[in-house]
């Protein structure tokens, strides 16, 4: 392989890399990722560095990110094909500059849009490099609209599986759900804009949660302990309200958020992170009220809450919510790792061993259920592969698909007999819709 050609492309990144001393790095990968990053860069945060990674020079040129890593298109296309023989050398060339950008980071957030070429192909690699550099990796993946075609959907799903294997926490932002918020005559461009605005709202809240230390801080290790090793898609939602009734309104809004599936996501959540962001006038009663309402929706979940105060948020109240669903018995992610890159496991686990020790106390304290955490991996993989050679390929995947399909009919909520009557809206809920559907009760 001609390593020399890739050297110059990586070189602009290499010299600027050592400047990064911030504990949090946010990568925008691919066109969608870079676009999302642009909206975030405006929201300054002195603990966060923004890095744009893309194969498209035009997209990078418009990016507002202070650090840009251009990559060569032809090489990365081969990654997308998933061919390991071509992948390894390509990885070696680019990993150097990516690793430099990840150095000394505590948390790496990867923003990407799945379904295309760049985002789908590169983001798992970025995630892996970041993990090898000792950081915790949180990925926020935007899934395509249904109308973008089934091929894109398949690619996105495949990308998601690969990404899930590499990251500590994965947050899914399905565009299709945003569609419910947009009325029919909206232009396509505006649709994307609205979708982006919705996602940015959530991401801003996430960053704020990590960077602003406030009233009731959420420590990074605590958050990671909660997300770590789950290997399931979390849901991220944010809502804002102002005025005297903001505590009630904000709860109504967040519970009606399309990404929460009408409360379904909360009801089935195992861990929920709630972050409140208010001005100097944020009252304890309001925090209490919001938390009371939210915890009521997720009684079985482990709830981690934080509250921050910011002058700019006077008279406003923003709530950001991350809900992590119950992980399936054997995370399919591990199987993917075992099938696809069995050889890689050894050096991965060694890298993890390096990252783990400082976090261990939090992990054991913060976790409610014993989960197959990455810490047990060094000795496990071989045993597991031997123990159930058939299972690993077929069974766990089936369970996940079945679970996912079970929630589909809930998208269309029927009002039955009251279909044509005047809507019965009470505190933001339509009382004509069966209560058990609104509360997200799963009938067995």
């Amino acid at each position, binding site marked *: 392989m001609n390593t020399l050609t890739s050297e110059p492309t990586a070189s602009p990144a290499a010299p600027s890399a050592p400047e990064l001393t911030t504990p949090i790095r946010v990568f925008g990968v691919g066109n969608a990722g870079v676009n999302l990053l642009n909206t975030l860069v405006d929201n300054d945060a002195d603990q966060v560095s923004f890095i744009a990674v893309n194969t498209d020079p035009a997209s990078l040129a418009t990016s507002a990110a202070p650090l840009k890593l251009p990559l060569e298109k032809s090489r990365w296309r081969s990654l997308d094909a998933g061919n390991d023989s071509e992948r390894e050398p390509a990885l070696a060339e680019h990993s150097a500059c990516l690793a430099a950008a990840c150095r000394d980071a505590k948390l790496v957030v990867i923003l990407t849009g799945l379904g295309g070429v760049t985002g789908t192909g590169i983001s798992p690699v970025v995630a892996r490099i970041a993990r090898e550099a000792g950081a915790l990796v949180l990925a926020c993946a935007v899934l395509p609209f249904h109308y973008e075609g089934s091929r894109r959907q398949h690619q996105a799903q495949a990308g998601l599986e690969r990404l899930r294997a590499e990251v500590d926490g994965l947050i899914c932002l399905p565009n299709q759900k945003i569609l419910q918020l947009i009325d029919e005559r909206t232009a396509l461009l505006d649709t994307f804009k609205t979708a982006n605005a919705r996602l940015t709202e959530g991401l801003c809240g996430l960053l704020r949660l990590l960077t602003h230390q406030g009233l009731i801080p959420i420590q990074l290790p605590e958050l990671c302990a909660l997300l770590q090793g789950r290997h399931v898609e979390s849901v991220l939602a944010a809502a804002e309200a102002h005025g005297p009734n903001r505590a009630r309104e904000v709860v109504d809004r967040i519970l009606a958020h399309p990404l929460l599936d009408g409360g379904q996501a909360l009801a089935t959540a195992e861990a929920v992170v709630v972050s409140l962001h208010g001005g100097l006038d944020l009252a304890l009663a309001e925090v209490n009220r919001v938390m009371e309402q939210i915890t009521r929706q997720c009684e079985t979940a482990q709830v981690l809450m934080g509250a921050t105060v910011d002058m700019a948020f006077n008279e406003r109240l923003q709530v950001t919510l991350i809900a992590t669903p119950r992980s399936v018995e054997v995370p399919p992610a591990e199987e993917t790792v075992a099938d696809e890159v069995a050889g890689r496991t050894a050096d991965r686990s060694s890298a993890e061993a390096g990252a783990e020790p400082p976090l261990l106390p939090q992990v054991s304290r913060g976790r409610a259920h014993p989960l197959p955490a990455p810490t047990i991996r060094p000795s496990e993989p071989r045993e597991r592969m031997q123990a159930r050679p058939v299972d690993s390929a077929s069974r766990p995947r089936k369970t996940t698909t079945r679970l996912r399909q079970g929630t589909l009919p809930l998208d269309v909520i029927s009002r039955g007999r009251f279909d044509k009557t*005047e809507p*019965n809206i*009470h505190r933001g809920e339509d*009382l004509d819709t069966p*209560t058990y559907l609104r509360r997200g009760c799963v009938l067995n």
Partner: protein
Amino acid sequence: MFDSSAIFVGLEVGTSKICAVVGEVGDSGVPNIIGIGQCASRGVRKGEIVDTARTEEDIRHALVEAEQMANVEIRTVFLGVTGSHIRGFNNRGIHPIVSDNREITEEDLQDVIKNAKAINLPVQNHVVHSIRQGFLVDGHDGYTNPVGLLGSRLEADMHVVHGNLNRLQNTIGAVNKLRLKVEDIAFTGLASSLAVLPREAKEDGALVIDMGGGTTDVVVYAGGSVKHSGVLAVGGDHLSNDLAIGLKVPLGRAEQLKIEYGGALVEENIKGQTVDVVNDFGLPLKTFSLENLRRIMWFRLEETFDLVRRDVEEAGLYDYLRAGVYLCGGCSRIPRVAELAEDVFGLPVFIGRSDCLSGDKSSLSQPEFAAAIGLVRFGANRRPTKRRKKTFAFRLTHPFQDLLGRR
């Protein structure tokens, strides 16, 4: 035989049934129930008429049945109204006492009541009731009849129940088409409270929940007068609809399942039990989990009670409910619903029975007739009978016996 003025008929046009109750006011002054007629309602949704022809037919059936049972001819009725458009709020009127000796006179009283009734409502709204709660003299509360007292400022508290005029007229119109005169209309929640609440409960403070087929009517009494009222457009129909959606059965079947197997609580021992549904020939059609059925019902009932509780709490009246909660309407027939309500409200819960009236006990003890029976009582209170000889003296000593002021 009977003087027509001594007969009062209460008519409730409900979502699940239409009910007419005939009462006769005897010497004791307490209505005696002499006839009840009912008919399944087919043209009403959430307490409001959606099919006039069918509703008229159903009303006629109910009235004919009541006439036959009571052996009277019905010409006028007191009509119950409900629907999500009905709201209640409290208003206060102020009147300065300007006379030299500062004595409060009957005229002052009428003036202050007039002021309290003068409220700003949208044009399309109509006041159903304005109920006197009490008077304040110079800012001191607790006067029920301040005539003759001295003071410089008289205030009156009123509870006003109002609704959308057109929607109220719809129900009245359906009755008028049957060549019947509607003597007066009353909010069904209020009527139910007249039927089920003993006098002590009104004094101690009580919450009356009339959970019928299409609406849940709420009235709060405290200190002897109505303090709060409201309507939630959720009722037994919603339970059936939830079951129809949740168990994937037709609405009629869901209704039947609700009646046969329904319950407000998910008991431990029903977990894993199943229910078979058979068709007309006795062949099994479908099997349901009883737990699912109960859970769907529990969710709806719990939510409804919770909404009522929040409503009462927001009105600041929760702490006044010393006598507890009185449930009536068809939904209070659901097994163990009182236990669920006790859980939600944290108060003693009673199934409302119209024990404060005399008459046919078997019908009086049924909570679903509470509204219609209450309407008879409302009518009897509204129009004191002429033949009583103490009328004039009675009026003098009890000028406010008629607490339900004219609209």
